[in-house]
């Protein structure tokens, strides 16, 4: 009795405090409901409540801007100018909610899904998409595991965890050699879940191939850590000349503060898929402490005038700088609309085939057009190296995407 009461009570509480953050389903009546008339529907799944709400809302807005742009340009021409409509779902950052929301949007007639910012949620949504044969184009999803199942309906725009970590090692070698201080040994500090450990493993493998030494490898629990001073002291004692950090925003900021107080003998701090070191917010929060920090990550293309215009529009409309996640959502919706245009159909299976063959110019940094490999990963996804310089995050490597040259020093050792 008591255990059941507890569970029932908790369930009721959870219902009480969850806001309803999605659009209402419109006449959900089987998978084909409402696909043949009215606007073409695209389902966006993001965490717009919970601890990732800031990014989730950014991404939903990015998707909406893409839909607005398509409609302003005359809608889907091959379907006689039919307009596009964004159906929205709130995953709350929970895998099970993401799954049920995905089902709801598909039932409401979505021809394709876009989302979800979190790997665990995307994993579940990919299963629903596969079962319903509806394409799912991921804007932000770091985990590579989803693409090892042979799914036909899963696609991804951002470079995966392994691609970013491998590029981070290559950029480090190139940039340090250019500066005349070739990297010897890299200490790796990372949070201990899949995200951080995956980045550390991939970086280590790539570094070994390049002849870069690795050690020590230090992990921490991102949810409870409140001081990283001892860990940074370990780095200092190890004699490593570069510290790579793969963590979320809060813990990476803690690491930066610990580095500032311990002052280890480093040539550079090197973010890998880092949740802080390429965020404008980090530049203000860490101030002088975060100066000259490097970060290898996906990024909006600061050298592309179209991207600059889009970010200006976002800033005007929502009074907030547009983040990379939102630009990736914009790209993903463009890919879907392109697929519908090419398929000249709202049949999700035909749209899937068109997406698989698509080539769409991205507004995020890429090696070329967005183009999917057989496993659904973006062939031309391309991480870029950034650095905090003169009070803002700048793209510094490779040269063709650089706003300025990398400055291979640390702020506390001129």
């Amino acid at each position, binding site marked *: 009795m008591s255990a059941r*009461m507890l569970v029932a009570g908790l369930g009721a*509480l959870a219902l009480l405090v969850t806001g309803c953050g999605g659009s209402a389903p419109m006449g959900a009546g089987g998978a084909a409901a409402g696909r043949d008339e009215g606007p073409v529907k695209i389902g966006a799944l993001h965490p717009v409540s919970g*601890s990732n709400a800031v990014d989730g809302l950014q991404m939903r807005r990015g998707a909406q801007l893409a839909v607005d742009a398509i409609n302003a340009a005359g809608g889907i021409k091959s379907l006689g100018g039919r307009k596009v409509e964004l159906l929205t779902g709130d995953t709350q950052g929970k895998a099970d909610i993401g799954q049920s929301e995905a089902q709801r949007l598909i039932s409401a007639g979505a021809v394709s899904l876009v989302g979800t910012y979190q790997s665990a949620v995307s994993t579940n949504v990919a299963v629903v998409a596969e079962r319903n044969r509806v394409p799912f184009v991921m804007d932000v999803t770091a985990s590579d595991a989803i693409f090892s199942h042979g799914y036909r309906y899963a696609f991804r725009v951002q470079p995966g965890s392994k691609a970013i970590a491998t590029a981070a090692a290559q950029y480090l070698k190139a940039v340090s050699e250019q500066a005349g201080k070739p990297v010897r040994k890299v200490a790796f500090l990372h949070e201990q879940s899949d995200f951080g450990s995956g980045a550390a493993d991939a970086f280590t493998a790539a570094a070994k191939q390049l002849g870069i030494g690795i050690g*020590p490898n*230090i992990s921490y629990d991102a949810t409870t850590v409140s001081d990283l*001073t001892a860990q940074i002291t370990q780095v200092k004692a190890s004699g490593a000349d570069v510290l790579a950090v793969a963590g979320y925003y809060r813990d990476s900021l803690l690491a930066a503060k610990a580095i500032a107080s311990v002052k280890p003998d480093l040539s550079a701090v090197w973010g890998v898929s880092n949740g802080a070191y390429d965020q404008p917010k980090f530049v203000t929060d860490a101030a002088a402490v975060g100066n000259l920090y490097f970060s290898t990550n996906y990024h909006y293309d600061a050298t592309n005038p179209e991207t600059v215009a889009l970010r200006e529009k976002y800033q005007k409309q929502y009074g907030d700088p547009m983040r990379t996640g939102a630009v990736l959502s914009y790209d993903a919706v463009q890919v879907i609309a392109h697929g519908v245009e090419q398929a000249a159909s709202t049949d999700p299976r035909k749209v899937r085939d068109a997406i698989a063959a698509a080539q769409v110019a991205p507004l995020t940094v890429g090696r070329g057009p967005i183009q999917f490999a057989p496993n659904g990963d973006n062939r031309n996804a391309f991480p870029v190296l950034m650095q905090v310089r003169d009070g803002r995050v700048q793209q510094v490597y490779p040269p063709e995407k650089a706003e300025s040259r990398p400055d291979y020093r640390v702020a506390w050792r001129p």
Partner: protein
Amino acid sequence: MTELDTGAPVVPDTAPPDRKTKADKGFLSRAGIVAAVLVVAIVVALLQSGSGLVVWQSVVTGILTGGLYGLIAMGLTLIFGVLDIVNFAHGAFLTVAMFLSFGMIQATGLHPYLTLVVAVPVLFLLGAAVHRGLLSGAGGRSLENQLLITLGLSLLLENGLLMFFGAEPKTIDLPGDFQFPLLGAVVAGSRLYAFLGAVVLGGLLYWLLRRTRLGTAIRAVAANAPGAALVGINVRRMHTLTFAIGTACAGAAAVLAGPLVTVTPTLGEQFNITAFVVVVLGGMGNVVGALVGGLLIGLVEQLTTIYLGGQSSLLGVFVVFLLVLFLRPQGLFGRRA
């Protein structure tokens, strides 16, 4: 047993005088065992890492974060010991106070520590209101009642903060924060202040409970509520007051911890579990025990990081926790009620 070295058990010592020395010996031997185990742990850490500096920094960091844990756990242990309420909303109260402090700093440019003047009374009133409105009937009642009420309250507070302040993480800067070297280890001023704050707050609560009429009444209610009522103590009022003092402690802890953390609505979850472990280690209702328990957990966490290269420092904490529960269910410094 001298009162000073046992901390302040809320449950009055009713043992006859001839048993005092025995209790005293028991306490000293326990403290000795804990100290010896810690020394061994530090030596093993030295062998493991091979760097004296790393271990020394871990010990210093462990003591400083331990003070922070003790600080956060103090209000919780008071509520636990006196009211028998498992208060899952303690972390949320902490977060509310932190946002209050943050909001005041933003609005008025006050020095972060000066927000104590507002955060403590506001949290006191909030605690009183919550106890009167929600919990009056739940003390000593079935566990799931309290769990549900306090958990529900914490969800409500967290989501309220989320609605009001948004999920964007915020930082509180301490003007003139400094670092100084301590035999090669680094100590940040803000962390030292939080540690000293824990010692001062522990001392204040100890004094309140042992040396004032109010404290005597609180302890009487904790020991025997019907008896206390018979001698004219208003039990309900004492309960409300204790709960309010407990949440006011969360307010003080929040102001001191503010500059050390990134402020988000879900911040409380980060400390909730640790705080409960500290309370059980130190003995329910024992404020000085909470401080010592906090130090112990802080050290264990840091040393585990050296042993296991950071494979969840919580692992070490829970091993210690289970050992203590198994060997001394009433906590290291608690006594059988």
